[in-house]
């Protein structure tokens, strides 16, 4: 953790959210929310249902405009940026949507090859080879390459979608509930995959999750959202001892304790 404080002082955040406010009609989602994410860390966003986790991610991806506030991605303000600089930011981000969002009319390989074909000048053969490389990185067999998304299992959809998110070697990877709908074994394997890829590809990971095991396994820092703002932002171990009753209730429940025990046994 020492490392991290040093990093914070010396480095600029890759994502910087400042005084963000959002509302759907009269219903307030975020109120004066500020958060920084630094290069190379795994930041997890947690919070009860309806606390605006996914909305926050949609703001950072510039899919949705907030009522007030600024978001800087690599130093570019997203909501005043012109199309060209916004495009440049987008090429540095990869997103794994909750349900994969694979294009249903394209095969797995075509899905992964799609951004490469659109944004690079490699020949068709090379694009295919690079797509196969990405499939290998996420642990999909070459046999899966020609399958259509509708023929894949839940775990394979997540992996294929991850391969597509990584197609252009982004700097930031966004994960929306990466392990939801996976069996415990696949979920664990997927966590490990993300840790491995994060370290070799030098990724910054921003994820929204409910999975306590995932949080213990891979999150460097965890941000707890509630009442429209950041209630706590710390490591998992620290959050367990949080002053805030809501945060403690989230992590100190039977599931939270079980996950913590399991993690301690594994780590120790």
């Amino acid at each position, binding site marked *: 953790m020492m490392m991290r404080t040093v990093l914070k002082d010396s480095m600029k955040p890759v994502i910087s959210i400042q005084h963000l406010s959002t509302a759907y009609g009269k219903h307030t989602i975020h109120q004066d929310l500020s958060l920084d994410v630094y290069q190379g860390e795994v930041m997890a966003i947690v919070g009860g249902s309806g606390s605006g986790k996914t909305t926050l991610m949609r703001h950072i991806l510039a899919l949705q405009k907030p009522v007030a506030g600024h978001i800087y991605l690599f130093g570019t303000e997203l909501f005043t940026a012109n199309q060209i600089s916004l495009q440049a930011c987008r090429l540095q981000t990869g997103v794994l949507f909750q349900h994969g969002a694979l294009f249903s009319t394209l095969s797995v390989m075509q899905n992964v090859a799609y951004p*490469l074909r659109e944004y690079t000048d490699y020949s068709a053969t090379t694009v295919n080879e690079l797509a196969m490389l990405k499939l290998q990185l996420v642990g999909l067999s070459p046999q899966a390459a020609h399958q259509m998304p509708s023929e894949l299992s839940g775990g394979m959809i997540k992996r294929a979608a991850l391969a597509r998110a990584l197609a252009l070697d982004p700097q930031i990877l966004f994960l929306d509930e990466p392990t939801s709908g996976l069996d415990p074994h696949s979920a664990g394997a997927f966590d490990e995959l993300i840790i491995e890829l994060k370290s*070799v590809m030098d990724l910054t990971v921003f994820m929204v999750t409910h999975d306590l095991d995932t949080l213990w396994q891979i999150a460097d820092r965890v941000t707890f959202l509630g009442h429209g703002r950041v209630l706590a932002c710390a490591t998992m171990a620290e959050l367990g001892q949080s002053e805030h009753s809501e945060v403690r209730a989230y992590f100190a429940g039977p599931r939270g304790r079980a996950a913590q025990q399991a993690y301690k046994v594994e780590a120790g």
Partner: protein
Amino acid sequence: MKTACVEYDYAEHRLSCSGEWTTAHLVELERNLIEHLPLAAAEVDIDGSTISAFDTVGAWMVKKIIANLQAHNVLVRVGGFSTPQLDLIELVSIDQVLAKPEVERFLPALGRTVVDQFEESLAFISFIGEMVIIGLCAFTKLNKLDWSNGIYVIEKTGARALPIVGLLSFLIGVVLTYQMGVQLQTYGANIFIVDLLGLAIFREFAPLLTAIIVAGRSGAAFTAEVGIMKIREEIDALKIMGLVPLETIVFPRIWGLIWSIPLLTVWADLFGMLGGMLMSDAMLGVSHHDFIQHAKHAVSLSSFVIGIGKAPVFAGIIASVGCFQGLRVTGSAESIGAQTTKSVVMAIFLIIVADAGFSILLSYFDI
């Protein structure tokens, strides 16, 4: 210097890599990689110390260079890469071979299409059978049926279609009068336009036109609605509740259409005759009064009844084809498009076949 480069030093047998070895900057190098490689050398040191940025494509490229050199019996040593870079090079593989996708040959494809079509026809026949049984069963529990769904279908497919059906039949009336009027004028038989219009519009044009509009409008909507329900597992949810999806989803649509298409046909009759009447006045000098007076004798009740009689048959075709194709949707968004197209084509095809059947049948019985 941003673009990825390799330079070969002949004296020291060193291949130095420089620039950004990333997805965006490796395009040039990848294109003419072989030209840059010292394939004839006995041994080569690959030096990565001046690489400024590195990603998976960079690592893949290094692997390729090594593989190419080794294939030419060159002794390769790698140096100057950082540990994370070496890890990445270690991780990527270049021998992930893509199997050729299976391309179906002509004959097997033809055979499969024939079998599929045959299977689909059988499925459609059994679907019709099921619908008939459900329809008969419905009579035994009339008080338990939810009629509101059907009323809603009548509103959507009937009431909302009034403007378009009215406008199009009006125009058909105008066009028919114009085309036939020219012929009649040469014989001075202007008033007989009423007889011709009465026969053509009441017997053929109104029911056929209405059915085709509804097939395009509501048949397609049925397929898309039912298709989405199938994808979202709503159909399965009905099944496990012990309900029959055909009864709750398909049946209201069929009986709704059986009401709305005949009513729309009457509407189309009126507007078709109205168009004809206006055109007769303008072109043939048949006044509205004369037109209506003559129509009383010229338009037989049988033409009207035959036209209306065909309508429920067309309704049955449209609704059952629409729902049937909707239930055959599988998984993807593409499949909804394909089934909707099929639904409209199949419905219009069957409508015209049925209309031809009616003509043959009626002429056989001399009506």
